[in-house]
């Protein structure tokens, strides 16, 4: 299983801050597409972090990964 984390407006839109999903061997890109389609979301400007590090689109996910969806940040 893979854990998905949502923040800011994504958390509010999806209505959850955490999801468990069997997404092993999916790429980050495929997971984004699936999520965008499931929830009718535009994830074009959303970055993805795997295990607290930014990940590229073709990164392949593994069981146990924590995948965070990071909308454009606005700290500072």
């Amino acid at each position, binding site marked *: 299983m893979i854990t998905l984390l949502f923040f800011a*407006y994504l958390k509010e839109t999806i209505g959850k801050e955490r999801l468990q999903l069997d997404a092993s061997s999916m790429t980050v890109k495929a997971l984004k597409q699936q999520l965008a389609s499931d929830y009718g979301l535009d994830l*074009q*400007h959303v970055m993805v972090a795997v295990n607290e*590090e930014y990940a*590229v689109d073709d990164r392949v996910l593994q069981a146990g990964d924590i995948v965070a969806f990071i909308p*454009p*940040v*606005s*700290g500072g």
Partner: protein
Amino acid sequence: MTTLFTITDQPISIEEVVHKVIRPEAGAVTTFIGTVRELTNGKRTLFLQYEAYVSMAEKMLAQIGIEIKERWPEAEVAITHRIGRLEISDIAVVIAVSTPHRKDAYEANRYAIERIKQIVPIWKKEYWEDGTEWVGNQLETKAYPKGKPEGEDVV
């Protein structure tokens, strides 16, 4: 051991952050203190809510520290960012940089705040009289950016 890079839900003490970087070899300390501004593009903010992916945000702050060391080897950096509800003029972030010479202290400090606005997973929600909005870009002005985050920001 003092933690140089911290996310907190408590008010930030400027002195505390500054004293993490003061040392005998450094004669110059710069700080950047980000406060909650009441007016943005003429719209009145009532208060803000900051949210963070805390564990990753602290890692990214530490990474900014590493990037600064690569560029300014003599610099010492400490950053504290506050989350939760903040009122007008409350302090959201304090960046302290000490260096032997002042030019570096200004430049490294400015580098830190620019990078925070690019890579640290912290989000600001503005509360106005007539609504709320998650602020979604790094340029302080627009709600969401047109452009995708650039490759170099995905580290």
